[in-house]
């Protein structure tokens, strides 16, 4: 019995986001949309604050490295933590005096151009396509990543900076074991170490990393145990878990900032072993 005559051959619906699928295909892009939006809003807010990013001996990863600091601000890093000294007088008055604004660009670009996040936000934010076998939200003439999205090809340059940040974040975590010269450990230290580790897992599992350490060669081992092949194997292991590290590190970096902020504001007390 003919039940329905559709205009598109094969019985396919037309129009944006139309599909025959009956499962809840929109759940995953919706979660992506919500998490990425909440994260971006929070990070922007936190970066604009310029205060309570330091709770001795913890430094929020959103503010690391501290290039300049204004130690008179509540919860600001002490001058010893600053790479270049006190807050510069040339800083334009209309911008909040926040050290985060000086350093967040690179991690931001790194995530934005990440092959995995591209998938996530092309699907969730631009509907290109929203999910598999679901009609894309129309664009005039589709050109993929060849037109204005061509800058995505410079992802590896963002990676170079991201690797640098991993070392800095581990350094921060290491420094968080000393309060006023006394060795110890607090919940915040664990939070900071986990943060560096998640971000490290994310960064070293990068597709561009996988290519650069060995994937770009056809003969990675040529029958020998080469460092190149070994590195490629390790990066490949992380790479297979790249989405997991991407989400874990995203959530954790936000959480770390919240933790340090709340401790710095005195809202919560950090459990630790220090006596001073």
């Amino acid at each position: 019995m003919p039940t329905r005559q559709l205009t598109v051959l094969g019985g396919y619906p037309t129009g944006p986001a139309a599909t025959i699928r009956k499962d809840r295909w929109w759940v995953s892009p919706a979660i992506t949309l919500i998490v990425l939006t909440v994260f971006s809003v929070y990070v922007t807010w936190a970066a604009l604050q310029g205060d309570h990013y330091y709770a001795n001996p913890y430094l929020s990863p959103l503010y690391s490295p501290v290039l300049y600091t204004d130690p008179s601000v509540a919860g600001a890093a002490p001058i010893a933590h600053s790479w270049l000294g006190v807050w510069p007088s040339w800083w334009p008055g209309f911008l909040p005096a926040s050290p985060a604004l000086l350093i967040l660009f690179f991690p931001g670009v790194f995530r934005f151009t990440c092959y995995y996040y591209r998938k996530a936000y092309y699907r969730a934010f631009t509907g290109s396509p929203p999910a598999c076998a679901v009609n894309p939200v129309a664009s005039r003439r589709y050109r993929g990543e060849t037109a204005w999205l061509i800058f995505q090809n410079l992802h590896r340059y963002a990676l170079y900076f991201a690797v640098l940040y991993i070392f800095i974040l581990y350094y921060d975590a290491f420094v968080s074991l000393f309060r006023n010269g006394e060795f110890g450990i607090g919940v915040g230290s664990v939070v900071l170490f986990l943060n560096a580790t998640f971000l490290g897992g994310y960064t070293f599992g990068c597709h561009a990393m996988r290519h650069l350490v060995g994937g770009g060669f056809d003969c990675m081992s040529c029958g020998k145990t080469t460092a190149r092949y070994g590195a490629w194997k390790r990066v490949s292991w992380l790479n297979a878990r790249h989405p997991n590290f991407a989400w874990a590190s995203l959530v954790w970096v936000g959480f770390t900032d919240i933790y340090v902020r709340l401790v710095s504001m005195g809202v919560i007390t950090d459990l630790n072993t220090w006596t001073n």
Partner: protein
Amino acid sequence: MSTRTFKIWRGDSGGGAFNEYDAEVDEGMVVLDVLHRIQALQANDLAVRWNCKAGKCGSCSMEINGRPKLACMTRMNTFGPDEVITVQPLKAFPVIKDLTCDVSWNYEQNKRIAPFKPQPRGRDGEHRMYQQDVDRVQEFRKCIECFLCQDVCHVVRDRGRKDAFVGPRFMIRLASLEMHPLDDDDRVPEIMKEYGSGMCNITRCCTDTCPENINITDNGIIPLKERVVDRYYDPLARLARLFAGRRMRTKTRSEEQSK
């Protein structure tokens, strides 16, 4: 045994419609079994392609409840008891009749790809390669050419850009040649300019769909995109090549010829 309702698209290049069939389903059946039962008992002229019934020939590709699938590998017990099962021909290719499509566009893409070009033999007169170096290209040999990835890829399926992109199946064929330790050909300019690596926006539907679980995007397309970056977009790599005096092709063969 239970009775299940199937909504099957019937028609040809001139048009068509969904027809409903109630069919008896036995335990252990797959969608292809039910289609055969409908064909035997209710619709003798139902066109459906199949061959191996073992997920190895890639003939029975169709869309089941809106998802590109192999009918012989889609078990009936994966559906809810009252679920109506919608079956359609692949969206990305022209319908011949009912559930069969003309997939010849894919064979045309395949013909465009230059075949394997072996390196000269080693000093001992042998070709040598090592298992660990070919592991990654062997993943792509699992392909059964079901073209489900081609069908689900939005560039091919919905964007009308068959002119600009060979599709995921042929991107991994290219990857298997380009990464092969014994292949002597350089395919990077063609990968970018003719086969269209930049058209893929790595949204991974091909990988999510592949019945052979080939990691098309991560292991095939992205590595190719990175090689394209080396050749065209990375300013430091270009500078390094300049200083080292290493010349690499940036024009495709047909661009070189048309000069």
